Every structure is written in C-alpha cells, then in structure tokens.
C-alpha cells in the first residue's frame, strides 16, 4: 500500500483493508485502501481514474457545438446543467445575449436537473443506511423529471439540450402539461420521502456526526455547492455571479452547521424545495419572445423547414455541422452551480475551430481529496456515508 502522506500516523501495527474498485454503475467509482486500527479507520488512500475519459484532450479536437455531448457525460445525474454551463461559456466568449425566454426555459431545465441530482444523493444515502423504500418511492418523481426532459430534447440522461445562443426548441404543450403535473405532485411525494428519513432514529444515528468537516477545512479543501453550505458557508454561484437571469428569482440558500452527512442531506432536501419555488416563479413569469439569439446564425442550426427550402439556411446548416465558425481569440471562465458545486469551464480560444485548451473545474474531483480526513476515526460501516 502506498502511504497517504497527508495524514501522519504513530508507529503501530495496522490492518490494511481494500474496498473496491467498485463498478462504474454503482455510485463511487474508485478504490479505497483503508488503514485500520481494530475497527477504527486511521487513514485511507483513494485511487481514482479507473474510467478517466480524457475529455480535456478530446475537446481540443472538436468544434464548439460538438463539445456539448461530452459535458453530458461529466455528471449524468444533472446533465442539462453541464450543457447549459458549456453553452453559456461559449456565449460569453462570442459575446452573445440570449433572449429572456430562453434564459427562463434554461432555468426551469437546470432546476429540474438539480432536483433530479439531489433526489439521487438523498435517496441513495438512505439505501446506504438500510432504507430502500424511500429510494424506490422518490425515484418515481425522478422518472417524471426525465419524462419532461424527454419531451424537451428527446433524451433522458445524456440530454445534450440547449444550443449555443439559445434553446433548440420551445416547450411543447405536452411538456408544459408534464411540468405542471410534476410541480403539483412533487411536494407531497417529497414530504412522504422526508417523513421516512428525516426524524428516523436509525438514519439519524448513522448520519449525525459522520464525516463532519468544519467551514475552514471545507474552504481550504475547495468545497463548493451543498457540501460547503452544509458546513455553514452560504456560497452559491447562482447568487454570487448570477447567470441566465437567476437574479430575477427569489430563493433562499439553506446552510448547515456541522458539515456532517446529516447536514448535507438536509441542505439538499431544502434545496429541492427552493428549486421547485424557482421553477414555479419561472413558469409564472415566463416572458414571450424568441428562444434563440438571432445574432449568432453561425452557431445556431437553422430550422429544418428553412434548410430544405432556402439556400442560406442550408449553407449555415453545413457550416455549423462541419464546425466552421468564427470564434474570437481569448480566454474565458464561466461557472455554474452544478448539482454538487461550482462547475467551471476555463476555455482558451486561439480563433481556430476547436478550443486551444479547455479545462473543467469538476467540484467532486476537487473535494474528494478531503475524504481521508473526513472518515478518520470512523468505523468501516460508516466509511461510505459521504455523499457523492
């Protein structure tokens, strides 16, 4: 075993216990080698990268519109947030103003994705503590969200929705109907789920004071998103650097106090309610107008009926599909509040048809290195109680 040099230990005989590598389909794609003193975890060393897919290298060979499907795969639980984050990065680079209606539609889709992501985190932590029923009940609601995505873009998990400059299509009447159904029925289902876990003695015993982290350590480790807010820091990209008209909406940022697993669970639970309130506000105040910016014909695929009947539309269709677009030189960073934290895109463009360098700031990669410190002193049955 390679020692973890960040955690010095006294000279003693320790037991080495290997966990994983787990299969990619299960949550937590990594191998963990624990160093145990009896039942107590003293140190651990994680090996990640088993399914590393070299997206940063891939992106250097792909035109801008072909990178959106890559971003889906970075977090399949909330793929639309990644898509929109990428589109907004390119829009910032080319200086494109997206119409209000497209921004509101994006907000609805992103908040639905956030709910879907938080549903997975919060229900799977229930499964890990032995409560399978909450997981099964709430997954029906996740299914409703995916049906809305299906209606909007045709895909469920890897959505590739939105385009540089707007949305590819407006919500259909069927999509509005499904959205209204979801908004109406989700609160009671969430309440039901909450009742199963929130004051459950077993759940509380197994999550309170498990994997705690202080606000100082969380900031030092680069935590963002719900895990940082659970530690008591009210940092949210949607509020600090509003994008896509988030400044138009009223919502609260829930914060925890202990930064333990229970607080992380609670923060996500409350964020689902806030997301639902944002969706309701967006539906109520949905502005009329176009769903894409007419200023960027070089990026936005023209409507199919025009492609079949007009020459210019056909030319643009070809140019875009072949990746022939004029992009200014420059470097830009854009961050969105992903399901798990600040998802950033750092893009250097040299004016070519592909990015010169694209760096993703993946929140989970950054804060997973705090794991050995967070589980130190715990026992094995608790070592996987770390959301994400």
């Amino acid at each position, binding site marked *: 075993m*390679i020692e*973890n*040099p*960040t955690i010095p230990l006294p000279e003693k005989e320790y037991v080495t216990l290997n966990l994983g590598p787990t299969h990619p389909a299960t949550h937590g794609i990594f191998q963990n080698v624990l160093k145990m003193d009896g039942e107590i975890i003293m140190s651990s060393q994680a090996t*990640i*990268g088993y399914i*590393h897919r*070299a997206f*940063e*290298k*891939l992106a*250097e*060979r792909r035109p801008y519109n072909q990178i959106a499907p890559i971003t889906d795969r970075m977090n399949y639980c909330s793929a639309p947030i990644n898509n929109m984050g990428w589109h907004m990065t390119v829009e*910032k*680079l080319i200086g494109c103003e997206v119409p209000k209606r497209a921004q509101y539609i994006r907000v609805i889709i992103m908040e639905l994705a956030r709910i879907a992501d938080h549903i997975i985190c919060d229900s799977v932590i229930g499964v890990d503590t032995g409560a399978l029923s909450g997981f099964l009940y709430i997954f029906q609601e996740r299914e409703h969200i995916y049906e809305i995505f299906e209606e909007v873009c045709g895909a469920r998990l890897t959505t590739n929705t939105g385009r540089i400059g707007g949305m590819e299509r407006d919500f259909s009447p069927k999509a509005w109907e499904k959205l209204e159904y979801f908004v109406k029925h989700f609160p009671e289902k969430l309440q039901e789920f909450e009742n199963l876990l929130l004051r459950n003695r077993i759940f509380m015993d197994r999550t309170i004071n498990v994997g705690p982290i202080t606000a100082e350590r969380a*900031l*030092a*480790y*680069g935590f963002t998103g719900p895990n940082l807010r659970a530690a008591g*820091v009210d*940092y949210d990209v949607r509020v*600090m*650097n509003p994008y896509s008209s988030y400044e138009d909406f009223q919502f609260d940022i829930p914060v925890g106090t202990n930064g333990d697993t229970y607080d992380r669970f609670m923060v996500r639970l409350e964020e689902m309610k806030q997301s639902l309130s944002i969706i309701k506000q967006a539906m109520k105040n949905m502005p009329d107008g176009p769903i894409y910016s007419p200023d960027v014909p070089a990026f936005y695929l023209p409507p199919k009926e025009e492609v079949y009947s007009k020459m210019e539309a056909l030319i643009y269709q070809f140019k875009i599909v*072949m*990746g*022939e677009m004029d992009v200014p030189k*420059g*470097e*830009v*960073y854009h*961050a969105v509040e992903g399901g798990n934290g*600040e998802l*950033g895109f*750092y893009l*250097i463009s040299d004016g*070519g*048809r592909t990015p*010169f*360098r694209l*760096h993703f*700031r993946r929140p989970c*990669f*950054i*804060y*997973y*290195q*705090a794991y050995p410190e967070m589980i130190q002193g715990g026992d094995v049955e608790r070592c996987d109680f770390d959301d994400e």
Partner: protein
Amino acid sequence: MKLADPKRYLLGWGDGNTPGSGSIPVISSIEQSYDFPVVVIAKQSLMDVLSFLKNDPEMGFTFLTTLCGFHVPGYEGGEFGMMYQLQNMQQNRRLRLKIFMPETDLDVPTATNLWPTANWMERQEYDFFGFNFVGHPDLRRILNMDEMNYFPLRKQYPLEDLGKHDKDDAKFGR
C-alpha cells in the same frame, strides 16, 4: 506594465509601479479578460504573490477555485504555462494569475502549503503536462496509470492518427 502598488491596482483603486524584488519584475502584465483580471507574473515570485493574495486582509483571496496548466508550443521561453484562479468570497472578487516557463525548466513551487486542495489539482497537472511541483507531498499520477511514460495533454501528442486530414484547419480555409 510596471506597478508601484499592485495591491491598489488589484483592488480597483488605480495603478502604479512594480515593487520589484531584485532584477525580476514581479508583474509582467495585467489585463481584463472578459469578467476576470488576468495577471501574468514571474515564476520566481509565484509563492510570494500567492501568499500575499491569500494572507493580506485587504486582498482576501482565500479560496483557490482551480488551477490548470497549458502548453503553447512555439512561444519562445514560455512553452508551458500555469493558471491559478483565486476567489475572494466576501467581496465576490475573482482573479486569474498566470506564469510561463520554458520547456527545459518545469519546476513550479507547490501551492499545497497554502491550500490543501491544490494537492490533487497539481497531481493532475503533473499527470497531464509533467510539471514538477517542488515540495508537493505526494506527486504521483492521478488519473492515468502509473506506468505511462508520457504527458498526454502536451500538444505533440495528437488525439487522432496523423494520417487523417479531414479535420485540419487548412481544409476549412484557415
């Protein structure tokens, strides 16, 4: 560009001239790139600047958002670069620092003493570009396998077979 008081400049109170440590100019350029101030500094002064930005109460850039490397073949004397992105959460300010170095000297002082989060980030940049982070506690590959003997994000490693020309810029009139 020379600044006497980079602190005032970075706080948005105007500009000045370099404080200067010996013959090395600390700040070689400052510009605004979209919504970010971008400061290019000399590699030798990286640790001084980072700890000043982090520890000075008026600067307060206590959060390391991300860091990454990049490879610019053909940029004489600065083929490799590193980017550090810092954030002041209280005042909602962000800042990007850049350093450049020649291919022959890829030693970079580690930021792990200031931010533990730099540990994996730097391991990643070592893994993909081969930067040697001096003083890093655990400089190993992180995403690629340990047996790998090259640094894949360098520009000399093409993504596809060199015999394929269908995606070359020249084909698109560039």
